[in-house]
């Protein structure tokens, strides 16, 4: 905010005070106006946005205290500064109690006046910045980054909207690279906690001791190397959301610790005895089958039921192939901007190939493939050649009779089916595709389920 963006209104029945203050603030570059009484001030207050009002406490008619009350009714964020003579300091204290920013006793030291107005302007600037940041947060929607029209992803988005309005604990299940953190952020950004942080901690990336210290923080000297007191992630997430990525990988001890925090919403830093109260919402994610882990005894049943209030399962990319074109185009647009390249689209044959592929690494893999293709792309289309690193030519047949992709796929699937004696589930497992895809492929290529079968 420039000084000229700050609007100051001076209300005083003494013309000499009014003029002196107006002139003084104008030299600082502020936008200043004045009024000789409360009525004139109230008229001016209706006319435009004001940041600071300096008002004399003793004025004929409506006095400064009453005027301040009316100003706060119009806009409670306007900063009011009372001007008073020595005799009415008590009234000034009353004004402070009613929300005045400060008061000055006439005549005031120029240095005090400069500091006062600088602080008031800073306060106003912070308010303005806070509003802008809130607006910015309101404008950000992580849902915009969740691409897809498939019924599977639509179902996920509906659930995100549903749970974001509550404080319930959520488990997000999905394979690596399927966008679990994005879903967690989408839930947070649409919840009432959106103005507070979402803190992510990858539970699988830390050893037991480190995870404990990361989550709960530690006091100075809590363990060798704890040179300073450190805030834990749970503390940082106060009033916000904590996202525990890969919850299935934590030890028994950490499971017990997390369960206790979930129950009490209280914890202590390592090496400390002060109990810290926190208000957070937990979202966790897992690639593991937690139910099986519970059955096998590697994950506490009570913790599982405590966490498993709402479950959101993100389908792997191979089960939402409908979304691959939109996702590919989204990443092309994204990288065109960040790489400053004029790549506008992707050729149909390349897209077909991407749709055909199995995507074991899910969206992350697709994103990386597009990024790499964009680096080598020459024109304004991503072509098949740009993906040669990803789909190398399979050496089947002689050079004269190079097979098509369909032929290669057909031969390969048949080979797998032969090896599994026509067991479709087993073949689907080896090929890392769904059984449905297997049936579709068998249908498409008229394959035999086993060597002895007639073609399907």
């Amino acid at each position, binding site marked *: 905010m420039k000084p000229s963006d700050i609007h100051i209104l001076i209300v005083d029945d003494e013309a*000499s005070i009014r003029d*002196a203050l107006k002139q003084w603030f*104008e030299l600082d*570059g502020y936008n200043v106006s004045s009024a000789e009484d409360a009525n004139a001030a109230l008229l001016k207050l209706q006319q435009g946005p004001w940041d600071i009002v300096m008002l004399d406490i003793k004025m004929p008619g409506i006095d400064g205290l009453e005027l301040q009350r009316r100003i706060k009714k119009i806009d409670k964020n306007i900063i009011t500064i009372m*001007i008073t003579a020595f005799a009415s300091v008590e009234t000034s204290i009353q004004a402070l109690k009613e929300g005045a920013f400060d008061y*000055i006793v006439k*005549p005031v*030291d*120029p240095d005090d006046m400069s500091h006062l107005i600088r602080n008031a302007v800073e306060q106003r600037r912070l308010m303005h910045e806070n509003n802008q940041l809130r607006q910015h947060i309101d404008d950000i929607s992580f849902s915009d980054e969740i691409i897809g029209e498939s019924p599977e992803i639509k179902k996920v988005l509906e659930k995100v909207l549903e749970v974001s309005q509550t404080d319930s604990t959520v488990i997000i299940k999905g394979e690596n690279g399927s966008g679990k953190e994005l879903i967690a952020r989408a839930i947070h950004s649409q919840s009432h906690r959106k103005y507070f942080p979402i803190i992510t901690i990858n539970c699988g990336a830390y050893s037991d001791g480190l995870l404990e210290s990361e989550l709960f923080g530690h006091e100075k000297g809590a363990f060798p190397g704890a040179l300073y007191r450190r805030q834990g992630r749970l503390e940082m997430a106060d009033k916000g959301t904590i996202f525990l990525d890969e919850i299935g990988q934590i030890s028994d001890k950490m499971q017990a610790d997390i369960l206790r925090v979930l129950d009490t919403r209280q914890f202590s830093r390592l090496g400390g005895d002060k109990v810290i109260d926190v208000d957070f919402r937990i979202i966790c994610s897992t690639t593991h089958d937690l139910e099986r882990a519970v059955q096998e005894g590697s994950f506490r049943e009570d913790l599982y039921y405590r966490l498993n209030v709402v479950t959101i399962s993100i389908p792997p990319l191979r089960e939402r192939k409908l979304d691959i074109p939109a996702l590919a185009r989204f990443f092309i647009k994204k990288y065109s901007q960040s790489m400053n390249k004029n790549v506008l689209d992707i050729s149909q044959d390349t897209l077909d190939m991407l749709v055909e592929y199995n995507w074991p690494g899910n969206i992350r893999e697709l994103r990386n493939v597009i990024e790499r293709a964009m680096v080598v792309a020459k024109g304004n289309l991503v072509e098949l050649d740009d993906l040669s690193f990803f789909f190398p030519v399979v050496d089947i047949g002689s050079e004269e009779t190079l097979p098509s992709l369909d032929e290669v796929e057909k031969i390969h699937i048949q080979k797998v089916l032969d090896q599994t004696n026509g067991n479709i589930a087993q073949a689907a497992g080896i090929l890392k595709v769904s059984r449905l895809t297997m049936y579709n492929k068998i249908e498409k290529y008229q394959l035999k389920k086993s060597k002895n079968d007639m073609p399907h």
Partner: protein
Amino acid sequence: MPYIYIQPIKTDYAPWIEGLEKSVYTVFGYHTKVANLDINLEKTFDQTRHQYNSSQILLQIISRPPADAVKVLGVVNVDLFIPILTFVFGEAQLRGIGSVIALHRLNNKFYGLSEDRELLKERLVKEAIHELGHNFGLVHCNNQSCVMKSSTYVEEVDQKSADMCSRCRELLRELL
């Protein structure tokens, strides 16, 4: 040809006028003349505060400026005030013709120190350029060494230079 007029008010200007004239010409490009306006200083004295009302002095300065005056700068050696503040080093009309500065609080003697004439001259030049800068339309600058930085203590006057920062110089060029 227009001039910036300097109006000493009941003060001996011989010790500082030459240096001030040079600086004013360097910064604003106007030659200066010493004015001889009829200013009644006593009339501006406030019995209760024992100070002189700078706004009232300024009113007298601008009431009948010389015909060829682009600006008129009054210089007094008394303690100045404006009604809301305990004192001022000077006062200027923003984008106006007149300004006034006081030697009183620029002098080391006011602070119980031995007189330093060179330092006094330096401070006077800074305050004169500062107030004339306001007359030409400049507002306070945040640059610590710029002469347009606001000073509420004499130490702050000493901290800043007598020159304008490049931004204020650029603005002044546009305003001149």
